């Protein structure tokens, strides 16, 4: 399968942040979520992809077309939903829809209407007058129907109410099923990540860590409840402990060590995604 998006050796200095070198590919049929602390450079990476921020070095290709070259045909194949949009304030939803739908040859009007109905988005008010939540809903209603192979969503659910979040999940699932498409998104909501993501990438100190498949990531982070005294020195796989439990990211090694030391555990379980991500984002 060929990649929709190929990011190779990309580096960028922005103020005090050095981003990169970044390598990442996005394959059709997948949803990848990028997580990282505030200010880690997630939005900057999206802007680099869109060529809204110029890269210092490296290559970014959408369907094999460099996004900083003179051939701008790639723009028809990607939808980018930023956290904040500039220039929409004076226009109503209807007006914005007229502008945007004319730019995308595969615009799906029925889907737009469906999202508007489902999320009850007011179309005749100026964008500036809408609440943050309604602005975000309108942005989504104007993003999904473009039907581009790649959808970049920068924190798409941060202002949504609970029912809207649920509806959006279903909309995104349906959207994915329409063809060989992919979503690359950022989110701080572990519920979004649990329900939608296949892969997780972590951006830390400007570096992008490996692409993790969600289940294998969860499966190999385990907590062992132990009532005996643990040895002081580090246990293989140990990434945390308290007086009652041990946390490991290498269960096989940990278990064989514990067995060898004849330390028994009363219970073991996988960690919640939120705990795992905290670990990955904050690990030094």
């Amino acid at each position: 399968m060929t990649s929709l998006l190929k990011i190779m050796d990309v580096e960028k200095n922005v103020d005090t942040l050095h981003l990169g070198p970044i390598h990442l590919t996005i394959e059709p049929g997948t949803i990848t979520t990028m997580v990282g602390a505030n200010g880690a450079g997630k939005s900057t990476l999206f802007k680099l992809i869109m060529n809204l921020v110029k890269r210092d070095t490296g290559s970014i290709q959408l369907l094999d077309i460099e996004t900083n070259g003179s051939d701008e045909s790639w723009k028809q194949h990607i939808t980018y939903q930023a956290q904040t949009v500039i220039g929409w304030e004076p226009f109503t939803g209807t007006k914005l829809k007229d502008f945007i739908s004319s730019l995308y040859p595969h615009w799906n009007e029925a889907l737009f209407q469906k999202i508007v109905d489902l999320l009850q988005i007011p179309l005749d008010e100026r964008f500036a007058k809408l609440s943050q939540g309604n602005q975000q809903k309108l942005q989504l209603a104007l993003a999904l129907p473009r039907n581009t192979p790649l959808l970049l969503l920068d924190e798409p659910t941060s202002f949504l109410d609970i029912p809207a979040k649920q509806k959006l999940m279903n909309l995104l699932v349906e959207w994915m099923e329409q063809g060989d498409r992919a979503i690359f998104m950022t989110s701080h909501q572990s519920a979004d990540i649990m329900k939608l993501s296949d892969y997780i990438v972590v951006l830390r100190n400007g570096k992008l860590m490996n692409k993790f498949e969600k289940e294998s990531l969860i499966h190999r982070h385990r907590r062992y409840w132990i009532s005996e005294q643990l040895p002081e020195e580090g246990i293989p796989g140990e990434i945390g402990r308290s007086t009652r439990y041990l946390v490991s990211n290498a269960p096989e090694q940990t278990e064989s060590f514990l067995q060898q030391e004849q330390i028994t555990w009363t219970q073991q379980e996988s960690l919640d995604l939120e705990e795992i991500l905290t670990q990955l984002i904050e690990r030094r």
Partner: protein
Amino acid sequence: MELPIYLSKTSREPIYHQIENQMKTLIASGQLTKGMPLPSIRALAKDLETSVITIRRAYQNLEYQGFIQTTQGKGTFVADIDHDMKQQMKVAEVYQAMEAAVEIAFKYDYTAEQLKKMCLEVIHKKGGNQT
């Protein structure tokens, strides 16, 4: 359509395997019958909060073993499985549950005799014949 599948955080059994086994049970017990449409891979991944990679693996295994069938463009359906296979599944499920109970009992140092006694008590309590 949603499926009553519950994934265990405490099990070391891989998630795709848990899904596979629970779907077999749903089919063997008749809760899912021949020809019933199954959720798409993406939709089930959302419901069970897994990746599509996991669901695809479970579906592939189920298809390979003849429990489900995928028709291009139409979706995935419960296959026609024979009576013997259903029987085997039922035996396997009960056996697995008993094994798990025995494992816990041994962890607490119960003897085989104590365990047998307990087992008969449970059978009695649930209204079964104690012969």
